[in-house]
């Protein structure tokens, strides 16, 4: 069987089945100076895939700003790192697991969490928080409920078991994700600067080990479908492409890896994630400017009869590749034994910059490292704005159609829309208090706030992205994801430090999708530059399509902010008579917003304009008011505009309190003011005693602002002349929208 596979002739059909273009194949032959064998072809197809090689995206990603005094480690390693003072650095990255979650939501989400955790702890950082950014179709569809239920369970069970609190995230429901949910997970770790570990295979002669789980035939994707047709005696049944997560082994691996790094026994550590042994070994060699030699016969297997092709391409979870110091092998083995993890020497670092694979001493592959890692083809093309954009913009309903919407009914519809509704059903399933540093967890504020132990400071974490905005205006959508994250971080008093991104798009070979991607990246770059928040890590996920078409282009941003003094956070206290203050202009922009999508079922118009200077200034104003104790609550105005923001602020106040909003005078239609999603806007609660001072301060800034209402004792939420509702009534709609839908059990499994 093994022999048959190795001898499988490399025909044009076989090349095509591996997803390689004829010109790419010619380039491989040129680089090797000969034809590749079957195994080598599989290796190239992986390393030159978008997933590993970023062939469509790399040219554009280089436009993202990635430098700054705070950056300790930019893109290129397993995760990025920023300085947070006190000798500490925060390591973080976000990653997608969309396709696996579409096939098997529980395991797909769980192994997504596992992968991103490993990216962080291979850097020597202890994971201190997770966030998850999720997108699903319409929650009234049983299959969507099935995906949602099991993705949430998968995220929770894995993180809960490993003991990393999931402290924040977002969930959006929109038809465009019906066949293709998005599961993006972000992990944040903490270390002392001197403990930072890079994934480098340095020092020729150094031994190479596989630490952790044994290797099975998991996740050998597309390429392996071909392989399995060659293996006639194995039915497709026995070829699992779904990976099963084992969080307990992950926990062992986490502890063992951190201990190993602290001991100084390791030179480099890399997670064997996507493309497993192949990418981990070749990337480590590339970073070390060395070669590497691995004998696949020594890799511990879970199943008999695996070919080199399968061992090299397997995506079995919970495995690490470790380059050790030659005199430290006993220390390494002792740590592995302490944690009951298999640890096997599989190869050695070589001086020659060749990636050499043996099977029982016989050479199976020999490829220059550079050919796999540096020579990945890059495609960059300029494409014109697609036709659909003009159509979407033209579809914007006129003022009469908007004026016909009953505003109070619209408020109820918005608050009970799953995208806006309370996400308690989700985050109650996540352990968000383990590690005892969660000051503000999910549902408490716009961003999570974590204590940094042993210091006075705290970090703020948020994820944001808006596919509808990006669909209507790719460039604005990219920028808006960044500024919304920055607003969320600012609302807990923190200053944006840096971001990670997860770029979820359809098939980049299609011009429209490619345009969306390029423009969104430009938008992100502009916003990050303006806000001084470099991109230190990220991930691209293309081909998010179902028979119904591509998803809305959805760049998601994970942001880390710093609050130097944890006591300078919003206190959350409020009493009747306190003022409600709007920082920023009155709302007017309804295009691409929630009023249209949730009430009229329309995706239409342009996304809100982005004024980066205003975003920057207003965020600074809000932070300074919080810092000085002049604002006790801060919430940004986003989905659903002022009306939804005011209701959400009210739901967070002590029971019995209400809010009475005043709408700007002289407007015949209140819709813009209530539901407009214009940028750079915040709603604050200002203690009555501080109002005079806040007025003066705001007036001095020159920024637009007004007192937009006050906190009341009557337990009602009033929307100016439009009318009012019992707070409890609205709160119930908002709190129960998702829970009620999930009580329907027909999707239970």
């Amino acid at each position, binding site marked *: 069987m093994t022999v048959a596979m190795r001898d499988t002739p490399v025909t044009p059909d076989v090349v095509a089945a591996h997803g390689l273009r004829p010109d790419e194949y010619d380039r491989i032959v040129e680089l090797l100076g000969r034809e590749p064998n079957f195994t080598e072809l599989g290796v190239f197809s992986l390393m030159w895939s978008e997933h590993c090689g970023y062939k469509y995206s790399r040219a554009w990603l280089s436009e993202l700003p990635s430098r700054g005094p705070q950056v300790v480690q930019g893109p290129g390693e397993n995760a990025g790192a920023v300085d947070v003072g006190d000798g500490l650095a925060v390591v973080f990255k976000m990653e997608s697991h969309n396709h696996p979650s579409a*096939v*098997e939501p*529980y*395991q797909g989400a769980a192994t997504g969490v596992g992968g991103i955790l490993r990216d962080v702890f291979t850097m020597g950082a202890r994971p201190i928080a997770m966030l998850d950014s999720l997108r699903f179709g319409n929650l009234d569809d049983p299959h969507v409920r099935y995906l949602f239920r099991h993705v949430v369970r998968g995220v929770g069970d894995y993180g809960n078991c490993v003991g990393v609190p999931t402290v924040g995230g977002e969930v959006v429901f929109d038809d465009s994700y019906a066949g293709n949910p998005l599961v993006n997970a972000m992990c944040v770790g903490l270390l002392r600067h001197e403990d930072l570990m890079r994934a480098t295979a340095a020092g020729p002669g150094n031994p190479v080990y596989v630490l952790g*789980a044994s290797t*099975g*035939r*998991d996740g050998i994707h597309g390429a392996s479908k071909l392989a399995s047709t060659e293996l006639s005696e194995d039915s497709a*049944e*026995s*070829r*699992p492409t*779904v*990976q*099963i*997560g*084992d969080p*307990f*082994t992950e926990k062992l691996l986490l502890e063992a890896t951190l201990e190993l790094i602290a001991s100084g026994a390791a030179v480099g550590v890399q997670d064997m994630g996507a493309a497993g042994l192949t990418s981990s070994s070749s990337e480590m060699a590339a970073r070390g400017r060395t070669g590497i030699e691995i004998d696949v016969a020594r890799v511990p297997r*879970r*199943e008999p009869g695996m070919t080199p092709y399968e061992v090299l391409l397997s995506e*079995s*979870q919970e495995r690490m590749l470790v380059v050790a110091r030659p005199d430290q092998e006993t220390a390494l083995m002792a740590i592995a034994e302490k944690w*009951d993890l298999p640890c096997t020497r599989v190869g050695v670092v070589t001086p020659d910059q060749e990636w050499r694979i043996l099977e029982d001493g016989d050479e199976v592959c020999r490829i220059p490292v550079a050919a796999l890692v540096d020579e990945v083809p890059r495609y960059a093309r300029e494409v014109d704005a697609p036709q659909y954009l003009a159509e979407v913009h033209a579809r914007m309903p006129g003022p009469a159609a908007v004026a016909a919407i009953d505003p109070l009914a619209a408020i109820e519809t918005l608050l009970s829309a799953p995208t806006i509704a309370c996400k308690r059903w989700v985050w109650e399933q996540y352990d968000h208090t383990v590690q005892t540093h969660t000051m503000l967890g999910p549902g408490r504020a716009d961003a999570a706030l974590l204590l940094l132990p042993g210091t006075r400071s705290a970090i703020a974490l948020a994820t944001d992205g808006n596919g509808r905005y990006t669909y209507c205006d790719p460039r604005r959508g990219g920028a808006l994801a960044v500024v919304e994250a920055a607003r969320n971080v600012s609302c807990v008093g923190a200053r944006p430090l840096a971001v990670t991104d997860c770029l979820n798009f359809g098939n980049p070979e299609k011009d429209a999708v490619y345009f969306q991607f390029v423009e969104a990246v430009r938008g992100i770059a502009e916003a990050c530059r303006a806000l001084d928040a470099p991109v230190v890590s990220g991930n691209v996920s293309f081909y998010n399509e179902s028979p119904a078409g591509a998803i809305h282009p959805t760049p998601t941003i994970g942001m880390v902010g710093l609050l130097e003094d944890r006591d300078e956070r919003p206190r959350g206290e409020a009493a009747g008579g306190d003022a409600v203050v709007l920082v920023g202009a009155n709302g007017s922009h309804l295009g691409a917003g929630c009023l249209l999508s949730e009430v009229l079922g329309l995706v239409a118009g342009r996304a809100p304009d982005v004024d980066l200077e205003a975003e920057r200034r207003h965020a600074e104003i809000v932070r300074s008011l919080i810092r000085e104790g002049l604002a006790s609550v801060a919430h940004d105005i986003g989905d659903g505009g002022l009306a939804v923001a005011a209701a959400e602020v009210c739901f967070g106040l002590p029971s019995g309190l209400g809010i009475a909003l005043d709408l700007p005078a002289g407007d015949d239609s209140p819709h813009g003011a209530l539901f407009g999603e214009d940028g750079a806007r915040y709603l604050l609660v200002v203690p009555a005693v501080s109002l005079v001072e806040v007025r003066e301060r705001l007036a001095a800034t020159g920024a637009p602002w007004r007192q937009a209402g006050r906190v009341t004792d009557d337990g009602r939420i009033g929307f100016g002349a439009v009318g009012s509702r019992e707070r409890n009534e609205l709160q119930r709609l908002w709190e129960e929208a998702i829970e009620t839908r999930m009580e329907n059990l027909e999707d*239970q*499994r």
Partner: protein
Amino acid sequence: MTSRVEVFVQLKEGMLDPQGKTLEHALESLGYAGVDGVRVGKWITFEVQGEGREAIERQVDEMCGRLLANTVIERYTFTMREAGA
């Protein structure tokens, strides 16, 4: 007619079974030597009313495929006998 149904669900061959693996280690360290290939699955029992063995069988099979097992990663079998018989 009332039938008693027993459904057996297990991860497909070749799939990692973390439950089975840890259990096997545990049994070993408890001193039970010679235990091998532990796999942990589900055993679901119920009664079902209906006429015609074949019709019921078809229905149970459908129930397994739709709900009781996750056929992406699991396989199932079931047995049926007349209750009270």
